[in-house]
């Protein structure tokens, strides 16, 4: 196709993109809040997208030729732009309402075990629910659980956390010689699994960890070792005969805790210096856990909006005024003075005087 440029207006910002671009990619070109969130779309994976419905947008004007609006909200990751199209994302109440609904649906059966989840801090679902979700849940039934599957020594599967984005299925299909896992069953009991208990062993299968937007597929060699926000991301490379060898090391001191591919601002794997997608092999990811295995390029900049990028925010404006200024000169009122000794635990009981663990009777009998 010739390099025909289409003008598309998203949230009143006009951008020119080549014909065949999706609304989502046009919005990403503008960047910032205008880009709809995407949980299942992955630009490096063919055929991904359309499933999670978080990127729904309203098309207020179809095109210059056919200005009729589209009746339904459309998945921006799978809808291509037309010349003169007008799209409403965050300026449409309908979109925000539907998106809040989708976030609620995604969190319905999600266990919210973030405190023990290795993905916490770099989880797309966390970001999504902070930005588009509601405070509470209206779901009062038991969340669904699954029979556990062992995927081998490298990859840990937590099916309860899965949002069925199919990214890992596409990755295995397009990156490895033979896909060994897929989606079994249907509806709300659909699950990612290998058909007969089998471990996933393939030189590039580790990449499913990188594409997983939630903590469903995590690195077993990093499991419970550290929290991502305590580790520092560092760009590094090595000569690898299987992959590009360009990775991100997650270090604490001299210790390499985790190796991942390098990610861009949308949380997707960046292109390597050879121009191809920077997928990395299992060797680099799981076996090279010493700083001496790598040539360190320098600290990597994380521009994604999650916990790991704290302190890395670009264009951050610090407020100039102090709390006292904001409150018109009055001192902030402390709700709880931590210097007060609470009476709840009966400070009169000297616990060190007991020769055994304290029991409720020790407090009650006073």
């Amino acid at each position, binding site marked *: 196709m010739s390099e025909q440029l289409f003008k598309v207006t998203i949230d009143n910002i006009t951008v020119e993109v080549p014909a065949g671009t999706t609304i989502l990619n046009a919005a990403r070109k503008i960047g910032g809040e205008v880009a709809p969130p995407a949980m299942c779309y992955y630009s490096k994976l063919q055929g991904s997208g359309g*499933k999670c419905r978080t990127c*729904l947008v309203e098309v207020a004007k179809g095109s210059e030729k056919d200005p009729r609006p589209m009746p339904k909200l459309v998945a921006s990751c799978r809808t291509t732009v037309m010349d003169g199209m007008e799209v409403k994302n965050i300026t449409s109440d309908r979109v925000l309402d539907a998106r809040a609904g989708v976030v609620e649906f995604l969190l319905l059966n999600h266990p919210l075990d973030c405190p023990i989840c290795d993905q916490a801090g770099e989880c797309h679902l966390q970001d999504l629910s902070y930005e588009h979700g509601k405070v509470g849940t*209206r779901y009062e039934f038991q969340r669904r659980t699954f029979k556990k599957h062992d995927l081998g020594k490298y990859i840990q599967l937590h099916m309860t956390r899965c949002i069925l984005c199919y990214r890992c299925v596409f990755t295995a299909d397009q990156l490895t010689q033979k896909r060994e896992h897929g989606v079994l069953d249907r509806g709300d009991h659909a699950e990612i699994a290998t058909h007969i208990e089998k471990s996933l062993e393939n030189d590039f299968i580790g990449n499913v960890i990188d594409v997983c937007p939630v903590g469903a597929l995590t690195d077993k060699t990093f499991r419970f070792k550290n929290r991502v926000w305590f580790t520092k991301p560092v760009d590094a490379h090595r000569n690898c005969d299987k992959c590009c060898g360009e990775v991100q090391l997650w270090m604490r001191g001299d210790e390499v805790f985790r190796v991942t591919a390098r990610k861009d601002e949308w949380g997707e794997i960046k292109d390597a210096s050879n121009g191809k997608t920077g997928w990395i092999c299992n060797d680099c990811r799981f076996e090279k856990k010493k700083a001496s295995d790598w040539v360190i390029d320098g600290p990597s900049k994380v521009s994604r909006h999650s916990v790991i990028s704290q302190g890395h925010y670009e264009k951050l404006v610090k407020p100039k005024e102090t709390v006292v200024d904001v409150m018109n000169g009055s001192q902030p009122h402390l709700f709880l003075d931590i210097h007060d000794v609470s009476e709840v635990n009966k400070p009169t009981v000297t616990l060190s005087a007991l020769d055994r663990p304290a029991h409720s009777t020790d407090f009650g009998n006073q």
Partner: protein
Amino acid sequence: MGVKLLLEKAHVEGIRYYDVYRREGGYRSVEKALKQMSPEAIVEEVKKSGLRGRGGAGFPTGLKWSFIAKPEGVPRHLVCNADESEPGTFKDRYLMEFLPHLLIEGLIVSSFALGSNATYIYIRGEYAWIPDILEQAIEEAKANGWLGKNILGTGFDCEIYVQRGAGAYICGEETALIESLEGKRGNPRIKPPFPAIEGLWRRPTVVNNVETLAAVVPIINLGGEEYAKIGVGKSTGTKLISACGNINKPGVYEIDMTISVEEFIYSDEYCGGIPNGKRLKACIPGGSSVPILPANLLLKTAKGETRYMNYESLADGGFASGSMMGSGGFIVLDEDQCIVKNTYTLARFYRHESCGQCSPCREGTGWMEKLLKKIDSGKGTSADIDLLWDIQRKIEGNTICPLGDAAAWPVAAAIRHFRDEFEWHVSNPQLCLTQNYGLAHYADPIHVPAV
């Protein structure tokens, strides 16, 4: 007695077999179409007939056929959707079981019109005995020169294959059906591209319902204009209705879309009224996914006009006070039926049949089922009813395929029209376990019909 086009010969002894079918005038349309008409002329004839898809959506068939892309050197396919899984619908089963040659005849003509040399019948797995009937009919047709190479010396080749599904409702959605036919997991595809451009094996494909393809036979025999004279307005021709529920004579009826709903339920020619002298409470007029209507809105539209059994009249009033013709699964509920339980049963079906691909449908259908079960078992609160309404609102229109809508509409309509019954369940948690709400005021202005 209304006009009958499809089921005219259904009661002839041995019509299932080729000899009798041919003697009764079968395969005339193939002779006419292949020898006297061009494929374009057949499409034009179907367009003129005003035939609308009989599978549920009611999209004009001729128009659908004219969309099919015709790139050079790429084969095209016709797929017959016999995955009839909508609760309350069993018209295609009847057609395939008793008149298999009618479908084969329609398929040959349609294949010729669309240029499909390999045509598929995708039949639901539960219809375990029907593939044998169809395959026997195909064998007979082949033995007599209606199928295979160079049919009737016209140089047109056509083969028909029967493929069994594994019993998933979602495989009745055309793109999921195509995926399943290709041997993949039956997940609906994201449209566009539409099957007319990129369908089965990425080739241009048309997917049509069994009844639609069978209706091509009378269209060719009579001519499109003659066919269009039957019926009323944009509802042309005849429609098979599979009536079930609380009626005296459940079964498959062919109607010419001019009779009123009241006549259909109460006349002896059709459903024969409601048994045991019970009164009509509600009706789902077009298969489980269409909105349920209370008796007063079923027989008369909101404007007070008589409601007829056709596409326009049943949809009169939109979803606020109307419903849809759907696939023709006519489910009648009498005063002893509980709407909450009925809605729960439907919600359970949709939860079970959701493919799990997109989040609103996967999570929402399960949530609705759990809430309805809670209300049905007398543990619900009035906040649950509002929540249910909110959930269906967030599913509808936000999913990949129409299953999300199909799951949301029955719940929405039940709450819209029968909210007092839901509230009664909430306020009478003990009573609702042993007793039904019965008829409410919405059913009161019912007169005893004179038919």
